[in-house]
């Protein structure tokens, strides 16, 4: 059943895979992200971060507030390179 439940929809990481890497010794969202790519897709963890945190909270018996969050970085929504490149040209004028 766990192999049918999706945690990271962008990178197709199932709950089964998540539990596998936790069993291998990866304990934090940062480590799980780098070991599986969960959170590295187009939505950058907006969907899966909390789901992974929930699993860690259950497994390690810590409240959600104490699960270590990965660093939040810009941009909050994806921006095209062209938009940024044009802004750079404008700024130079």
């Amino acid at each position, binding site marked *: 059943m766990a192999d049918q439940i999706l945690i990271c*929809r962008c990178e197709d990481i199932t709950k089964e895979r998540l539990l596998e890497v936790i069993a291998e010794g990866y304990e934090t969202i940062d480590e799980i992200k780098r070991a599986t790519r969960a959170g590295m897709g187009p939505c950058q963890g907006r969907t899966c971060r909390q789901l992974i945190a929930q699993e860690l909270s259950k497994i390690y018996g810590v409240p959600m507030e104490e699960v270590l969050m990965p660093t939040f970085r810009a941009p909050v929504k994806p921006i095209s390179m062209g938009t940024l490149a044009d802004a750079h040209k404008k700024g130079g004028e």
Partner: protein
Amino acid sequence: MRIEEHPILDFDRGEKITFFYNGQEVEGYTNETIVAALHAAGVRKLGASPELHRPRGLFCAIGNCSSCFMTVDDEPNVRVCVVKCKQGMRVEEQNGRGVVRV
């Protein structure tokens, strides 16, 4: 199927237009998102995920999750749940990674 009567909201759908979905003509309105028009036309599968090739459709429907990626007018990775449809637009199912036309 669209909601025609609602106790509170008035839908200002704009003008009726047609666009293309996988080569077939679909009806839409200028103030609707692409996926709203597709949904009304009965389309649920918008593409497939890159690794497991799962059929994908709407998930968050608010431009947050990237589940609804389609290729629109040759532009890949378009979030059709937040982009409005236009006359003559070419909307294609995106299976996995979109292709950038150079």
